[in-house]
């Protein structure tokens, strides 16, 4: 079985709750897409409605730096 690559993982550890579904967010599979490039990641996801959460630190840190790198391609 091929090992699946994840560029980034955040485990919510039960600390976040989906307001709509009333259930805790779990570590789930998600994908960042930008300028025709895709990056599989694991982020806090609602197991019911699929809401994917991007925390502020991630958005301003890793995500922003990958954006800059891709923009200059």
């Amino acid at each position, binding site marked *: 079985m091929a090992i699946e690559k994840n560029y980034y993982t955040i485990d919510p550890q039960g*600390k*976040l*709750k*989906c*307001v*709509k579904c009333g259930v805790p*967010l779990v570590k*789930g*599979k*998600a*994908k*960042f*897409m*930008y*300028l*025709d*490039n895709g990056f*599989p990641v694991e*982020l*806090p*996801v*609602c197991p019911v*409605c*699929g*809401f*994917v*959460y*991007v925390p*502020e630190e991630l*958005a*301003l840190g890793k*995500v*922003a730096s*990958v*954006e*800059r*790198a*891709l*923009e*200059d*391609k």
Partner: protein
Amino acid sequence: MSQIQERGSTHVYKVNKISKEEMESMVARCVYEQPPFCSAACPLKLDVRAMLKAAAGGNFKKALQLYEKIAPFPLILSQGCEAPCEGKCRLGEIGDGLAIREVERAVARYGEQSRLGSVFRSAKRQKIAILGSGLFTLLLAGELEKKAYPVTVFCEESDEEAYLRTAAPFLDEEAFALELRRLKGKEIRFECSCRLDAAFYEQHKASFDVLCASDEVRAKLFPDSAPIPELMICEAERLVSGPTRGVLDAAFGAKKAALTVDRLAQKLDPRNTRGQEGPTDSLLYTDLSEAKALRRVAVPAGGYTKEQAMEEAGRCIQCHCEECLKSCAYLKHYKKHPGLLAREIYNNTQIIMGDHQLNKPMNACSLCGQCTVVCPNGFDMARVCHLARQNMVSTDKMPLAPHEFALLDMLFSNGNAFLARPQPGFASCRYVFFPGCQAAAIAPETVRAAYEDLCSRLEGGVALMLGCCGAIADWAGRTEMAQQAHELLDRELARLGDPIVIAGCPSCAKELREHGVKELRGIWDVLEEIGLPEGVHKLERPMALHDSCGARGDAATQASIRRLAASLGVRLTDTPYSGDRSPCCGYGGLTAYANREVAGEMTEQCLERSDEPYLSYCMACRDRFARQGRESRHLLELVYGTDAGAPPDISEKRWNRLTLKRSLLRELWGEESMEDKLNFELNYTAEARRMMDERMILTDDVIAVLEDFRASGEAIEDEDGLLVARRRVGNATFWVKFSRTDGGYLVHRAWSHRMNVVKREG
């Protein structure tokens, strides 16, 4: 809501080449890389500047290494050189030129000889013979030894000492002893007491790959052949030789001859790839305004002592042209002279696959044109960066992110906030007031006062047009978007009866003129003509005038502004870099959006020029100075006695434009506009507001997120009980962290990213 199409992919494999010739001609204007005048005059191309710098610092070893690059026998050259460099020293124009040759003598005497050179080189296979004596043969042997050729010198003298004596009879005894030691240390084979006649030549010629001879021996062997002076060769006989006159000419002849030998040994045509040889003219510019007129250090009989040589070398002003680097915060930031930066930016446009590392510098130039004025050669960095931006846009390689906010702002100015109306009571008008998008955003009450004043005092009706001139898209290199803006303005101007445009901003004036608006005047021209409005409050205060980069090269506007300021009672203090040499405040060229760090440095540099409050005539300048905490006023605020107050944040700038349009529509034209009323209460913490301004998140973006939340109920709740909702708006996803209040929400934080995130199955 307006949107701009993001480029679809990073996988675009096309380039739209800027003509290399065009770029080269632009780059060539930068004289930074031109040699200093002393080096240009030296046929041997000695790096005089670097040698003097090393000597001035007491590093005679390094100085000698530099000197030995052109002089295999440094004492011979320094004692006998005619020193054409000295006549070209720029210090000679204000005092004594540098005693370069005397410093060279000291370097040759005190410099410790480096022994590393021969350890790492491998000897070449081709064997070279040199027949005869004299300075040319000695120096040629030295040059060829440096190139690692096995050299044999055949001479009539009895030994090396006699050979050296013949070559350099002018050396004093100390120098002679040193050079003899140097000669013996070189890998040059000597065959002495030879009879150099035709028979000798015939006997030896087959044993060598290349043969060279003194001019005397050459004349004896081939009396009828004439060597080519540029190549130092008798071509028919393949004999490297030629007459030389004087020490420097012999050194230059030996250098040319060594290159010819090198080419022949490699079986190449000696004519090819020789580069530029001999003395040249330099186009370098040297600012002598701060140079001191000094006498040269007197030379004692035995030459300089170490200390004297250091003192004399220390007088060198190290000729460099850095006029633009002195005045431009952008070039200072990147620590590169513009010729080099332009070449790198040009190369950036040519990359098909890989990283465009120069995108950031390319987008950081304010396109203000200051460099072109301060450069003695008129180097135009703005054109380089502007062309490169247009090129990257046209090939779909330009990232949208650095300019998207500004471009959306332009679409807002020419969309929701746009207004074009004739003066009430007029079907068509003689004039139209075009204050510019920044004036409406930063000082709406000043715009209103100016418009009302113009309406009341000008004959023939004054229409009003609130919008963007297109400069934003033009600066971003987005030609099509700029064209759309110009077409909108053209259409509306035609509808208003093609009135004379009264521009409130010099950058708009410039942009509109460049794009074909025929009749245009600045509001400053009009105010000078009709006089200041009645009851104008005179100020008796000093202020520092900051000239707008939009008025560069426009002496009439600059003069008009000064007269108006004087008639308002303002005492203008003189600042360095004023008028055409004025720097950009950091807004121009969209630097403030694409590179805040550089924009900040530009603003700081503007403000360093004076401690007085600043007076400007471009609202963007006024805004950036005020944001930096300096008292800053626009000329029109003084004329109309208005005060735009503290600088607005990015959302307030939009709100100001919209509110100005709506209130004028209501009050002057009796038109009510639809206002988007929020059906919930929305408040922000101070931290959230500051964060939004810094992160370019508008209140409209926050409202979009919360409206979406109200419709879908989608949000998460964090550990602290705060809610976080999100919405994709255009090319970005906005996140808002908030709490519920009685009638609505309190926003605590906001952030965004451009990447799209989706759930993945499996």
